[in-house]
């Protein structure tokens, strides 16, 4: 307890629960002043910090979302490319297979044709040689026959 409280104490002891006096307007003024002080010290700065953070969070979120979308787009693009490349290689393999196949067929056909031709030629040669051998044999036989006939005729004479 301080002495100035005693000094300031007023004499007439009124009172009661509903004792309205100058406390009311002074308290109102005090609250208004407090409002301004708290606005300057508390509500404005803290509000600024909180809202700056909210902005920061929302922009970062938006950025992150954008990046995610970009990544997804790139991913689909790359997948597309991969698919295309796969299709391309498959086609290449198929083409190569077909080409080798046709080459093989061609080579086979040529080889068969060649062998056929050489076989045919050989057969023809054999035939002609047999023919000539036969004609020679025939000539020889005729000559021999003539000779035999001549000798026999001469003997009988």
């Amino acid at each position, binding site marked *: *307890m301080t002495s100035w*409280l*005693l000094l*300031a*104490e*007023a004499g*007439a*002891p*009124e*009172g*009661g*629960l*509903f*004792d*309205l*006096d*100058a*406390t*009311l*307007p*002074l*308290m*109102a003024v*005090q*609250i*208004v002043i*407090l*409002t*301004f*002080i*708290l*606005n300057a*010290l*508390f*509500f*404005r*700065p*803290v*509000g600024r*910090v*909180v809202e*700056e*953070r909210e902005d*920061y969070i929302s922009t970062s979120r938006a950025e992150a979302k954008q990046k995610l979308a970009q990544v997804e787009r790139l991913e689909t693009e790359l997948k597309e490319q991969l698919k295309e490349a796969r299709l391309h290689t498959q086609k290449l393999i198929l083409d190569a297979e077909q080409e080798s196949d046709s080459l093989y067929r061609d080579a086979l056909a040529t080889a068969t044709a060649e062998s056929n031709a050489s076989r045919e030629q050989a057969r023809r040669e054999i035939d002609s040689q047999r023919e000539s051998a036969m004609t020679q044999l025939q000539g020889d036989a005729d000559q021999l026959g003539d000779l035999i006939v001549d000798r026999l005729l001469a003997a009988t004479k």
Partner: protein
Amino acid sequence: MVALPLVLPFAELEVGQHLYWQLGNFKIHGQVFLSSWVVIGALLALVVAGTRKLSRDPQGTQNLLEFLWDYIRDLTREQIGEKAYRDWLPFIGTLFLFIFVSNWGGALVPWKLIHLPSGELGAPTADINTTIALALLVSLAYFYAGLSRKGFRYFEYYVEPTPIMLPFKIVEDFTKPLSLSFRLFGNILADELVVAVLAFLVPLVVPLPAMFLGLFTSAIQALIFATLAAYYIGEAVHEEQH
């Protein structure tokens, strides 16, 4: 007015006694101002400590202040609406914080250790002058809010939805501050009296539940006062959909 005749053998409860200070021709209740200065000092100390270095990554007291700010913003935005809540956030916030700290200060600070020549320290909100001051400020605030936002179209509010409402709306302007002030005053005073009476009758353990209930009531009353104040302002700035 006389003090309530509490005839308890060992209770000396002082109700309705004040520490009078003379200020010119006016008398004021010194104990109310003393405790309100303590309350305001505590509030300002908290605020100054918490806002000394504000950063994007809050630390220590800044967390508490941001929580309070967020809470008050949600309250005002819900009651006043997106368009006008920003102007009234400091006022509603100050009402809430002042009443809340007053109520809890009245319940938690051991005021009885400080003896005054007359009257006793307690929650500033347990004095009718404080609560009427707060309630009248709310009345002024919602009149100002309505008039500044809508001009004289504000008075359309009195005849909406039908002109039959006019007398009721006028009466409401009187009952609003009345109910605001008496609700707060009655709750806080009653709570202090209950705790004091119980403490005088049975000084141990028994008053504890009443004290906890008092803390709860105190917080609720601060919330009610702030919410209603915001609601009244919201009602005044509300634009009818034509």
